[in-house]
């Protein structure tokens, strides 16, 4: 049984007068992967930070289940090179953990061999795995990932999404993630929210997971990927992202997604 762990109701956020998030409502459940997609400046990160409690909405309600434990994987973690830190130490910064728990965590993201390494020598993919391991060590009920595959090569991306999917299966936790890579994220998501300040549309992604060669194919050909998610737009945007007035049916018919699409 999936239960709600987060509910957002009519959330509005603006920065210095500019509306960034407009009337957004959605729920997050246990055992469900929700993916936020949208162009740069669509307010995805702002929305995620609202769920994390780092940003307070101007109006609207953010409800979190009592004592909800959140594991957060930030977009990028820059650690000043003046700060000496090994992978092992990084995993137990906020609290001492038994070494068996640490060993399990690094094994589950396949970075056991890096435990004694300095954190400054890690590659992008290794760093993301490390951040994931650190989030998992908190036994989260909700895992929040802000573009988890940024700076990771295409094979690494597939693996990371598979890993996130496996984690959800094993732990039954809720997952909220931001992604640009629609084609890769498809296989590992239950619910997609497409946003551009407001929620444009949301729903289940097409069932394409059954054919792994499909993902391989589209991994190699990075373009022409936008058709994978069945969009049901009933409106159009101008260059500023504002909704254009007009006949919804006409707008939907005229809206063809291309890689150049600013949407």
């Amino acid at each position, binding site marked *: 049984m999936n239960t709600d762990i987060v509910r957002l109701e009519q959330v509005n956020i603006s920065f210095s007068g500019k509306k960034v998030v407009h009337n957004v409502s959605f729920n997050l459940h246990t055992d469900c992967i929700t993916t936020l997609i949208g162009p740069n400046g669509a307010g995805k990160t702002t929305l995620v*930070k609202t769920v*994390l*409690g*780092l940003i307070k909405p101007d109006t609207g309600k953010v409800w979190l289940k009592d004592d909800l434990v*959140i594991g*957060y994987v*930030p977009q990028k*973690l820059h*650690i*000043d*090179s*003046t*700060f*000496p*830190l*090994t992978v092992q*130490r*990084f995993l137990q*910064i*906020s*609290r001492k953990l038994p070494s068996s728990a640490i060993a399990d965590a690094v094994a589950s993201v396949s970075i056991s061999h890096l435990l004694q390494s*300095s*954190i*400054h*020598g890690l590659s992008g993919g290794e760093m993301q795995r490390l951040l994931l391991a650190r989030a998992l060590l*908190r036994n989260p009920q909700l895992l929040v990932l802000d573009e988890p595959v940024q700076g990771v090569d295409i094979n690494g991306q597939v693996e990371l999404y598979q890993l996130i999917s496996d984690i959800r299966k094993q732990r039954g936790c809720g997952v909220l993630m931001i992604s640009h890579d629609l084609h890769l994220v498809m296989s590992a998501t239950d619910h997609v929210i497409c946003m551009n300040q407001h929620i444009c549309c949301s729903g289940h992604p097409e069932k394409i997971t059954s054919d792994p060669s499909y993902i391989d194919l589209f991994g190699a050909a990075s373009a022409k990927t936008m058709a994978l998610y069945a969009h049901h737009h009933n409106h159009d945007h101008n260059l500023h992202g504002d909704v254009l007035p007009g006949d919804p049916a006409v707008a939907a018919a005229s809206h063809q997604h291309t890689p150049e699409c600013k949407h």
Partner: protein
Amino acid sequence: MFYDFLIYALVGGIGVALVAGPLGAFVVWRRMSYFGDSLAHSALLGVAIGIFFEINLNIAIIICCLLLAILLVAMQKQHFIATDTLLGIMAHSSLSLGLVTISFIEDARIDLMAFLFGDLLAILPEDLLWILLGGVLVLSLLYYYWPQMIAMTINEELAAVEGVPVAKMRLLLMLMIALVIAVAMKIVGVLLITSLLIIPAASARPLSRSPEKMALLASLLGCAAVVMGLLASFEFDTPAGPSVVVAAMVIFMSIYLWPRKVAH
């Protein structure tokens, strides 16, 4: 045998170096060296105010530094001016304000040089008490809040999500630095104080693989610099504060020039 003033200077200098080690590490990690400089400049305003109102100088300096740290934290919330600009404005304004105030004090026999460059050899038992009190307070706070301070330094957002009260920790760190600067002013003076924070910490960096080791090593290297500097000052009759800084610099240079395997 040994002279009292030399003993006092050694004890005071070592006391300050012990606290300056871990705090200096935070200054290096969080790129706050300009913050230290600004607070040090404001310490001179504290001196002027202390003399003007005839309050205990140590108290006047501490209050002035703490108030400026709070003011800075408050002003960082606005986004029109970057922090480094703000720090520059505060540093030079408070320094000038201090100098102007001092000029109003009639027949004040203030040894400005002593405040600017320190007068380690004129240290009194009363100053030692301040160093001891301030040192014990700061070290206990650091020990108690260490995990949270480290988590905040690695990444503030990650720490906040994991339940660290980041804003409070940031303020606490600034207040501790302010306190140490106020207390340490006697040792190396307004203009050289930041060096006591950052040079030992920077020297410790290539030799450390954990933040704790870097903090501890910074304390020890700072103590070494104080002892070396003071003995050299006594031997060659050079000014004490600058001699300590030169000793710290020599340690820094030898560590960085020493051939070794590159560690991270």
